[in-house]
């Protein structure tokens, strides 16, 4: 084989093949490099966020070599990104907190003492919701979860149990009573400034509980697109106020009505009714005691 043939083979066949192969490998290499860079940020939460963000940006880039160049740019900026991340951790959260922005008034049915679930459907609803909120698929965030049911079925007890669980796990939870914020009786307009402040304040919140919500509350929440999971407590059989239109960001919907019906069928109607009546009596006694102690304190 002559030298000319070798040079011809190298330039006309092997080099283009290698270049083509390298071009095909570029996006894969870029992804690996981007994930590696994100993992070096030194913070699991930041690594998860920036890995997803940068990979999505790479996916919108045309060409193949540009992927690798962009990934290299992230790698080269790693020391500065790490330094910025450390300095931002030392910075106090900007803007007002949710406590300052949202009314702290609570519903009369809310009891701040430890919640006790008195019958099986409550426990089923509570565990289902807890699982959905805590083990939320990271790809599906900003979800509006719903806990619905007829009046007196124990929605607030379930919410209180969730509240206690979150507090025990060291998570941040915020309670809002829709009656003091936004509902059909108080159709407040949320300005762009207020929306931005609410988004900023809810960034570190693990769950926002919105009690006694109606369609107007749900519309406002859907428009706000808060970054934290939201659990909406709403009544069914609530004339003109029942939630019938669920927004696109709806996550889990737990309706306690059918759960109670299934439980009644399994347990037998008499036994189920006895337990329900017993639970209502205990709840009513608790409420009366609470109201008495509140009025005593007020005096």
């Amino acid at each position: 084989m002559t030298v000319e043939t070798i040079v011809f083979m190298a330039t006309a066949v092997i080099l283009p093949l290698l270049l083509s192969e390298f071009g095909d490998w570029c996006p894969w290499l870029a992804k690996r490099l981007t994930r590696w860079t994100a993992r070096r940020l030194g913070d699991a939460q930041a690594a998860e966020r920036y890995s997803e963000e940068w990979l999505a940006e790479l996916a919108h880039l045309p060409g193949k070599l540009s992927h690798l160049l962009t990934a290299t740019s992230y790698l080269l900026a790693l020391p500065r990104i790490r330094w910025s991340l450390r300095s931002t951790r030392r910075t106090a959260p900007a803007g007002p907190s949710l406590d300052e922005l949202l009314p702290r008034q609570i519903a009369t049915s809310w009891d701040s003492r430890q919640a006790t679930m008195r019958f099986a459907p409550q426990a089923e609803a509570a565990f289902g919701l807890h699982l959905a909120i805590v083990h939320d698929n990271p790809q599906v965030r900003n979800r509006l979860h719903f806990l619905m049911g007829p009046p007196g079925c124990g929605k607030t007890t379930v919410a209180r149990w969730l509240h206690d669980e979150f507090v025990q796990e060291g998570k941040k939870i915020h309670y809002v009573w829709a009656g003091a914020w936004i509902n059909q009786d108080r159709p407040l307009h949320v300005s762009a400034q207020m929306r931005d402040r609410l988004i900023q304040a809810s960034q570190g919140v693990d769950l926002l509980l919105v009690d006694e919500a109606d369609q107007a509350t749900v519309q406002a929440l859907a428009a706000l697109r808060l970054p934290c999971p939201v659990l909406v407590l709403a009544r069914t059989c609530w004339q003109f106020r029942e939630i019938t239109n669920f927004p696109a960001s709806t996550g889990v919907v737990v309706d306690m009505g059918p759960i109670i019906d299934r439980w009644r069928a399994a347990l037998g109607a008499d036994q189920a009714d006895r337990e329900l009546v017993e639970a209502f009596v205990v709840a009513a006694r608790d409420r009366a005691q609470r109201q008495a102690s509140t009025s005593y304190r007020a005096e």
Partner: protein
Amino acid sequence: MSYPFRVTDATVDVVEALLSGDDELYGLKIAKSIGRPSGSVVPILMRLEACGWVLSEWEQDESVRGPRRRFYRLHADHVGAARRLVGERKTASATAVSSTLRPGLGGVR
């Protein structure tokens, strides 16, 4: 006027890009629009977000599979200050240009 972050040319460029009114601004798009490497824009956005000037949200399109982009925008409370910052820089650069490139008429005489 004082700002809660270090004002550099790159920071002002990023703020100017955020003022463009584009609702779908992500890191790489900002970097391209201001002609800077994508890696250099990330720490700036991080600092602006930490001091509350910038808000970021995940892409909402549910039909998109795989990783989501994160869109950045100016906090409504700080749009005025951002415009002022960009205006200040323009005034400063115009002053600098006029002082360094002023045509000298001395030779004509």
